[in-house]
């Protein structure tokens, strides 16, 4: 799976958690909480969805590593290959 595919998955799951967020309007450096205004319940829903979709369980302590789409893609790509 390449970075672009992972990015599509991340953005589509963000859209499912918050349907008003159009993936086309999200920039890679948008902060999930500060810019996209996801709350802790939304972040947990996103992490749950990514776990179901990619089989990667992101520990709570590592949530800061996925706090923008760009960082999330980097983090998940590292887990998939490594």
């Amino acid at each position, binding site marked *: 799976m390449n970075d672009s595919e992972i990015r599509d998955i991340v953005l589509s799951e963000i859209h499912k958690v*918050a*349907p*008003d967020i*159009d993936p086309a309007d999200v920039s890679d450096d948008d902060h999930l*909480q*500060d810019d996209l*205004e996801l*709350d*802790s*319940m939304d972040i*947990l*829903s996103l*992490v*749950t969805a*990514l*776990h*179901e979709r990619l089989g990667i*369980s*992101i*520990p*709570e*302590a590592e949530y800061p590593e996925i706090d923008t789409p760009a960082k999330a893609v980097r983090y998940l790509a590292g887990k998939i290959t490594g």
Partner: protein
Amino acid sequence: MRRGDVVAVVETQKGAIEIESFEAGIVTELIASVGQTVPVGQELAWIGAEEPPTVEAVPEPSSKQPSVAVASKLSAPKVTAGPPRSLTSIGASPAARRAAHKLGIDLSTLQGSGPGGAIVLADVEASEKPKNIAKTTEGGLSEMRKAVAAAMVRSKREIPHFSASHTIETQGVSDWLAARNSDRPPSERVLLGAVLVKAAALAARSVKTLNGHFTDGAFVPSDEINTGVAISLRGGGLIAPALHRTDTMSLDDVMAGMRDLVTRARSGRLRGSEMTRGTLTVSSLGENGAEQMTGVIFPPQVALLTVGAPQVRPWVVGDAIIPREVTNFVLSADHRVCDGLQASKYLTVLAEKLSRPEEL
């Protein structure tokens, strides 16, 4: 149909609200048809006795039946058709179907955002105007803001509010929760918000004058502790559906219940009973918000607990000052019903509960 089955969906200012049957029985006659607009008070259907009665049998008519949705009468001796299953089999709300028909949209081409993929009005509207998801404001207040405004104006006009505040160390709860969550998959993790809601419900057991409704000039304490959970909706607005008997639920069930309420609040599918059964509401500013807020009571309730965002602050532990996570709680209460003493007791009991999270 069983008691609690959904018999209608009403599109309200605050989204679609499911109306549940207060009676068990067999639908003997449908009066209103799907998609029809009916005035308030109009009967929608007749529900007869649970078993088709013999000629002599006279089923008890319900005296407490609200007149809004469904009324009872003696059942027809024989019923051939089962209850309608339109909501589940077609998977679209009546308003969604009506709108789709009007706009010439094929429902089967839409993806529903309701529970179980049900298509709601918002889905139909979104398919027509994909970019316009904001509620119409037409230069004034949105429907949601009007609903919030009406409740809050009533609250501030009728309820003599007072508030008490307490800063409680929550480092222990957070550490305990982090350890508890660390070996769990995301779907089984519990958020601090759920722990606080459970603790708030348990504390309400100790102070009966904060849990109930003020109606017709008198306070009626509730035997059940049904915690309203204030949920802010993306795009604006607030809604506070309630969990049922929160104090008796396990922590995992409280978390699951809150997840469910948030999901359904956002997709606009809450039940009428969830909107009215709350006896004490908890409103949380989230994990990264401001540290303190004094909330406005949600009538006819008599108290509301606001939870600030946890902050790391210098804290005295024994003889030392060390950085600890602390959280500010403000209890707004109705002075017609209780005084500072009760509000203070509630907050100190809450602190006790939070000092022993493993017992929650």
